């Protein structure tokens, strides 16, 4: 049996009090002292845990704890003194795009490395903006192309980054020239640089270890390279330097040990790539492109150039088009780019890494269905460290979650757990789709249902034109 890709995980409890969705408000007055206290009967033992916690109280937030919201105590208290309330701290988590549920589930995954499982049916809106306007599809009894999933361990999530020529050329039965290099990673995800405002100096050394443990690659701004610390040698295959459009190239000794390097888009790309290749012919060069008003044309233009191996398309943290008044969402821009490359017959030649808006494991799968070869992830890894997206750090203030002071063990453990949980979830949805290789999932829009299309095909047909677009 070949080696299986497996991420080692361990429970990494949070450093700070948990922030749950709801908590029990207790007025305490008028308590009958009936000795039948429902608090003692809490199925989840929350009151006892909470009392224990409050004894070594660190923060008042602890009062809003991990109530499971079952209403049992509320409904059984002899005097009806208890009441359940939404935790206002919970409600303030995140921003419009990063919902409190996303943040909570990220924390749970970072702690346990497990796939979030719950009972009862789906509780959310029918559909929504962004990635919520699509569903993945699954295969049942009559789809002839299905692979048949006999075991999740046979699903491959490995991807190759690099240029894949459509044709091989031979000269007197010998392959002419060299095949372009490929970087093979076991999960369709690389770790991206933190967005501006979130670049804490203690993160890069953690990314370095996480990348090594999970087999992926962390992209680190070469300006921050010194933060990575000494003794880099063993980590270099898991690190990719990002070099700005006009920045000087790293030392040749360093480049020779890296598998991937990323450069900013700008003039003289061909020249710059040639310089890098001259130093290390085995290195793969990705070009970072902003998904703004010119993102589409620029991607298509570059993808057609023979010297381009991989494009890293970057939307903003919420998955929106950059610098746009009414921005398009990354998945829609990506579908357009992907489809256009397919029509030009060059989609397979270039690798697309896509950034922005990927907040949950499902988004990784959906982004790939929309045409990405792999995604790059940054904020979820920060949230794994108990970031609440309060954005205080954006203004240069101290991090409220104390992420500046975390130890490496904690940071590595939480991020690794999250990546492992995402990997497992990707396998779940791929299993349902009947797809055994994530490379086959790319652009496989046939394994997805898009809200606009299916609404039109169903209700549009019955009820006429849709209002408000």
């Amino acid at each position: 049996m070949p080696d299986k890709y497996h991420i080692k995980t361990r429970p990494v409890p949070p450093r700070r009090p948990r922030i749950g969705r709801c908590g029990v408000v207790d007025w305490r007055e008028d308590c009958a002292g009936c000795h039948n206290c429902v608090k003692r009967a809490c199925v989840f033992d929350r009151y006892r845990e909470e009392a224990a916690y409050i004894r070594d109280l660190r923060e008042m937030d602890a009062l809003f704890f991990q109530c499971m919201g079952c209403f049992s105590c509320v409904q059984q208290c002899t005097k009806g003194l208890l009441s359940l309330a939404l935790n206002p701290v919970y409600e303030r988590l995140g921003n419009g795009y990063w919902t409190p549920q996303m943040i909570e589930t990220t924390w749970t995954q970072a702690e346990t490395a497990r796939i979030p499982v719950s009972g009862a049916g789906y509780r959310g809106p029918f559909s929504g903006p962004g990635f919520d306007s699509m569903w993945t599809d699954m295969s049942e009894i009559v789809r002839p192309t299905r692979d048949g999933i006999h075991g999740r361990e046979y699903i491959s999530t490995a991807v190759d980054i690099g240029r894949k020529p459509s044709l091989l050329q031979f000269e007197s039965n010998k392959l002419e020239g060299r095949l372009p290099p490929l970087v093979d990673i076991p999960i369709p995800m690389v770790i991206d640089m933190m967005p501006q405002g979130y670049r804490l100096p203690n993160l890069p050394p953690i990314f370095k270890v996480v990348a090594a443990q999970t087999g992926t690659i962390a992209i680190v701004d070469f300006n921050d390279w010194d933060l990575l610390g000494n003794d880099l040698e063993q980590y270099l295959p898991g690190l990719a330097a990002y070099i700005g459009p006009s920045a000087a190239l790293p030392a040749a000794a360093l480049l020779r040990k890296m598998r991937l390097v990323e450069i900013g888009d700008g003039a003289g790309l061909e020249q710059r790539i040639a310089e890098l290749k001259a130093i290390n012919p085995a290195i793969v060069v990705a070009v970072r492109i902003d998904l703004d008003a010119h993102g589409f044309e620029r991607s298509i233009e570059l993808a057609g150039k023979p010297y381009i191996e991989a494009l890293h398309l970057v939307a903003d943290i919420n998955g929106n088009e950059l610098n746009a008044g009414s921005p398009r969402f990354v998945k829609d821009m990506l579908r357009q780019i992907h489809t256009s490359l397919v029509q030009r017959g060059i989609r397979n030649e270039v690798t697309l890494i896509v950034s922005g808006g990927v907040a949950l494991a499902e988004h990784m799968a959906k982004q790939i269905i929309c045409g990405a070869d792999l995604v790059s992830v940054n904020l979820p890894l920060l949230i794994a460290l108990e970031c609440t997206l309060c954005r205080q750090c954006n203004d240069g203030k101290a991090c409220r979650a104390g992420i500046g002071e975390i130890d490496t063990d904690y940071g590595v453990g939480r991020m690794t757990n999250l990546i492992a949980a995402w990997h497992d979830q990707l396998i779940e949805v791929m299993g349902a789709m009947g797809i055994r290789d994530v490379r086959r999932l790319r652009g496989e829009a046939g394994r997805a249902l898009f809200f606009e299309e299916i609404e039109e095909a169903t209700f549009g047909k019955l009820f006429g034109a849709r209002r408000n677009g």
Partner: protein
Amino acid sequence: MANSLVQEEMAEQDLPQSTLETLVPQVEVRRVIKPAPPRYRNEIAKYIIRRSDACKLCGKCAEVCPQGVHVLKGGYKYFAAPRQNVCIGPACKDSGHYCVDLCPNGALKMVENPMMKVLGDHRWTSDLILATWKMAETGAPPSPEYGYQYECGNSGGGFDRLRFRFPAVPPVDLSPDEIDTSLELNRRGDGRPQIKIDVPWYGGGMSFGSVSNVTQLSKAQAAVAFNTFTCTGEGGYMERLRPYDEHTITQVATGLFGVREETIQRVRIVEFKYAQGAKPGLGGHLLADKVTPAVAKMRETVTGISLFSPFPFHSVYSIEDHKKHMDWIKHINRHALVSAKVSTPADVDMVAVGSYSAGAHIVHMDGGYGGTGAAPDIAKKNIAMPIEYAIVKVHDFLTREGVRDKITLIVSGGLRSAHDIAKAIALGADGVVVGTGELVALGCVRCARCESGRGCPRGIATTDPDLQGQFNVEWGSQRVINLYNAWRIELVDILRRLGMRSVSELRGRTDLLMHLDYGNDAEQAQ
């Protein structure tokens, strides 16, 4: 009565001695509607009355309130806890007995219960939960005075944006007694029994293991009372369900847990579970904590070890394989109808027509937003299509293929009320399967903790001996019977307003629906 008929037929069929020995007399449950009050001391109410210190205990409020919210028991000086859940809220203002205005000391205040923000979710709003509780308590739709918005949820799509276009005056004047809600389940004309159920729905599969004995039996009793069915789910055929054989569907799922020849032979409907809407393509998973000694015995497995049902049936990779499965069951039980429970992938229309060709009597489609005792969140939200789309797609396809009237199309996956049921039928289904609604009737608050530790803290979806003792079968079955009755009343009312004598007339009448997000113009008007 169908009850005895099948017993006779089974005997004629010369069942093996081993099966005959397991047959027991069937229970009868009368369809009696009587109050089944909430089982918790403090029922959650939409509006709450607060009493301040200004109260002089004059008793005026108790005197004026026709609902009996304020309780001043004889011999007691102080008021007992108010019965908030019978308070009709602001609708009371103009009734002449609004306690807040009539209190001589201005001691009372009415506010919307702040807990409404915590209870419920987009699909099951707090109003929908409270209204379902009220129906389960009284057996009738909640009085409009309560102001519950329970005809749909707040998910912003699908059923929640569909409305009926009721004519201003019903085209035909019908009394409720003239309206037929029954549903034929066998349309194949293949000589197998013409099973008819009194209401166009039956209870969803919930295995012993995922829910308690009491829950299963409560559902079974209601199924008998309404001459419909309940389903064993995958966990095997419980001893206690034997007196309900006539109204039980046994499930053959991919794990084949507890499936035996005798369990196939004793029932009138056998259901193949290919997939479950909440987690299609993933199979089943009973978490280790729920595998108690009793569950393990039933499923012939080991206590405390998680149980997986694989996906798919590894013996079924084509419609021909599917037919082979059907034939196997049909051979073992010559009188059973066979149902294929499938989820809703993009090619669900092909699945449905394939099931028809393989010989199924019922195609049961379970949509993506269906219930579950435990499923990965990523699956519940993301895999396969919501049932609303699938109904239209499959109904149209089967009609075009000319086989629509040869198969019964049953749908499930997020149907919460009589209005959802009616909408599903108007979109093209024959009938529906309900599950979560029954659990809400039993006191579920949809906290989604069915899977954690010992299971449901409300004692519904658990096999923990302490937890499942929270209510008994008498109360539980009354709650489900009441809910069914209330739904039936509502369904009959919808049909009456549309001037239809039978629920079968409603099938596929999309012209009677409108969608709030669409123009609803053009051919609709015709």
